[in-house]
């Protein structure tokens, strides 16, 4: 009958309109994401695999042949414009490669699809420029203009921009399908994170821990471009953990807990592990007495609804800016004769942690940095800092390790507030069972400045003003290490001293190599067992991004983004770098 016919037609058209985008050959699917080891020629996920290993099975380039590595081709990119507080954009992104097409981002969020299939040159097939409001976003970025990469979903590329938007782009043409405003620079929220795609959701988190944000993790339904859920990393009134904010003035509302590096994911338990940033204000812990959950923590969450399964806090009442956003590798290991399912993390605070990934219980922890002075160690049962005082709300930790309102200048803090490891990712070789940690070694001092309240809490600080409660001082020349840890014990098995602190991250391969970029532009390959440097090439500008590897037409290549003028804090003690120029380049190597 007419009515049913009409209803039927309406239903059909609704089904067509709202149906999941039909999957076509060459589309990125959840199935492929779960089985990246079946496509060793591609690098499909930000950390290589969902478990965060940054390990490639490719071994055409190996310890015997790497001495022949040479530049295959380079590609100049844009994104070096100034904006906000920054003289130029920066490159921290991890490339994604699928079947001979590479997807990279520059700091201001342009996405480049580069055809690398010829092996002789990279042809930019398309470029998408999000038109970032550079002054608006750049004025509230604490630490550079960065974009850590894209994700693939079906026939789309999912990207972000510093000014807080998430994009779905047509993978073939770069045309924008939709954009969603996720973070709001009006309250100093920005985005720098590479999205994590699980099924049909893109998960990102907010940056702005030095500007008084309340951190969150957010999921977008990629079928509709709408928000699916948002989970705050700082619990609200009545929520579990909120009682660890004891100021009585609702300062949890500006408590920090930013999220700016991509989580890892365990399909077996359908859990993703998100590292959480520093408490805000960074260096005035008296402003926020209490443990300040979940700042400086890891959260285990459910991707479908953002529910927190468990949380573990590394540094309660964090007075150091010991952000813990960096990757949490998922590794199974035998610990004390028992098979354990672990989630591990070389923390900014200088300790390596292994936790039970089912419930967040502490399994073991061990110092991995050369020098550590803020605590004598970790409690063997709970992993809490040994000098954590449960009877006080503001933690002193080692006297003089941080400033206070009475004594604003700290003594020597080791590791420096940059941490033993900052955002730069490590890599795990499952064949050798070694976790490679590129570290920052050395110490600095930090100052406390009494934090004033935001205007919405009766004070004078307006939105978009810095909310950090002090600052750091570069008192010593920092150096670096490449260390190989046994993830089952945290023991450093091999170490290699590096001239410069590492801010780019590691790549491990089955060719028994570890690749690292360095601040002075050196790109090096190390023996995965001895960590001896086997090869290097210098690019004459800082490398601030991690390398990846891929193959096309049966030939293996190594790729890395290069171009970074180091910050003033670095040249102080490394004046030989003071005339470094920024650049914006993709380098691809072959043998």
């Amino acid at each position, binding site marked *: 009958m007419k009515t049913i016919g009409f209803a039927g037609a309406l239903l059909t058209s609704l089904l067509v309109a709202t149906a999941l985008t039909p999957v076509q050959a060459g589309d990125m699917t959840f199935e492929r994401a779960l089985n990246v080891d079946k496509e060793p020629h591609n690098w499909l996920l930000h950390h290589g695999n969902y478990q965060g290993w940054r390990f490639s099975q490719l071994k055409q380039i190996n310890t015997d042949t790497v001495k022949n590595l040479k530049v295959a081709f380079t590609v100049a990119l844009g994104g070096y414009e*100034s904006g906000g507080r920054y003289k130029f954009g920066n490159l921290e992104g991890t490339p994604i490669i699928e079947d001979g097409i590479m997807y990279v981002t520059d700091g201001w969020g342009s996405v480049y699809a580069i055809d690398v299939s010829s092996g002789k040159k990279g042809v930019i097939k398309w470029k998408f420029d999000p038109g970032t409001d550079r002054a608006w976003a750049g004025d509230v970025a604490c630490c550079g203009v960065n974009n850590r990469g894209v994700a693939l979903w079906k026939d789309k590329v999912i990207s972000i921009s510093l000014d807080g938007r998430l994009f779905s782009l047509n993978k073939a043409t770069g045309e924008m399908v939709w954009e969603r405003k996720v973070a709001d620079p*009006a309250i100093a929220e920005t985005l720098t994170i590479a999205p994590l795609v699980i099924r049909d959701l893109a998960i990102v988190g907010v940056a702005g821990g030095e500007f008084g944000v309340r951190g969150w993790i957010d999921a977008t339904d990629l079928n509709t471009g709408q928000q699916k859920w948002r989970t705050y990393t700082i619990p609200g009134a009545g929520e579990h953990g909120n009682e660890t904010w004891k100021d009585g003035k609702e300062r949890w509302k500006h408590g920090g807990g930013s999220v700016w590096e991509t989580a890892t994911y365990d399909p077996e338990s359908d859990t993703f592990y998100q590292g959480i940033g520093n408490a805000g204000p960074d260096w005035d812990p008296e402003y926020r007495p209490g443990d300040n959950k979940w700042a400086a923590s890891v959260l285990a969450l459910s991707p479908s609804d953002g529910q927190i399964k468990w949380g573990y806090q590394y540094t309660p009442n964090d007075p150091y800016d010991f952000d813990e956003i960096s990757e949490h590798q998922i590794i199974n290991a035998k610990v004390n004769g028992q098979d354990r399912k672990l989630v591990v993390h070389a923390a900014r605070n200088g300790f390596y942690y292994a936790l039970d990934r089912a419930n967040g219980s502490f399994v073991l922890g061990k110092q991995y940095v050369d020098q550590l002075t803020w605590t004598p160690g970790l409690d063997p049962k709970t992993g809490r800092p040994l000098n954590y005082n449960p009877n006080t709300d503001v933690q002193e930790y080692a006297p003089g390790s941080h400033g206070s309102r009475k004594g604003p200048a700290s003594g020597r803090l080791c590791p420096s507030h940059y941490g033993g490891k900052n955002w730069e990712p490590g890599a795990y070789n499952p064949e050798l069972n070694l976790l490679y940690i590129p570290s920052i070694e050395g110490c600095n001092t930090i100052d406390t400045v009494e934090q004033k309240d935001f205007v919405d809490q009766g004070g004078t600080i307006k939105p978009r003003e810095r909310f950090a409660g*002090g*600052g750091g001082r570069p008192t010593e020349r920092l150096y670096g290490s490449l260390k190989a840890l046994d993830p089952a014990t945290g023991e450093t098995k091999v170490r290699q001293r590096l001239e410069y602190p590492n801010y780019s991250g590691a790549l491990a391969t089955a060719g028994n190599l570890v690749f690292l970029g360095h601040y002075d532009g050196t790109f090096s390959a190390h023996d995965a067992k001895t960590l001896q440097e086997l090869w290097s090439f210098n690019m004459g500008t800082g490398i601030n991004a991690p390398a990846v590897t891929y193959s096309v037409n049966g030939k293996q290549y190594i790729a890395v983004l290069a171009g970074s003028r180091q910050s003033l804090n670095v040249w102080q003690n490394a004046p030989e770098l003071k005339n470094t120029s920024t650049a914006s380049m993709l380098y691809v190597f072959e043998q």
Partner: protein
Amino acid sequence: MKSTRLVLAAAALLAFLAAATASARAQAPLSPEDARTLEFGKEIYKIKANCQFCHKWDASGDTGYGGVALSLRKTALNREQFAEVIKCGRPGTGMPYHDQYAYTDKRCYGMTRDDVGKNMPLLGESLSPREIDAVVKYLFAKAVGRGESTYQDCVDFWGTETRQCEPMKK
């Protein structure tokens, strides 16, 4: 009569004083050279030496990454002292020096590198005397001694193609 002359004299004096003060505060039209110098100084403050990173775009000072930087709007320094601080930095603080030869001789506070020792200021972007002079002129024209920055100040600094100044619109 005497009292009228006195009144006239007083009135003339007041008028003179008013004119003198007014011309000090009024936007006397800049010569093209002066206008270029201010733009040049602004570009250095904003981008080349990146002073705004610590001192903020309107020179009102800041805390956080970049250190604890003073408000230049409230400075009590005169132009010469101001230039010296840019050139030489401030020992024992986070204020960098911008004369690349600072502390190689006694040009900075009468101190060499040995004299200043551990309090050696941070090394900043290298600026020539002409560039430092331009920054000083820019700051004294646009920031020093002025109260809170205004929406117009913001637009002058950032332009209008950004949302940056919207929060300042009344």
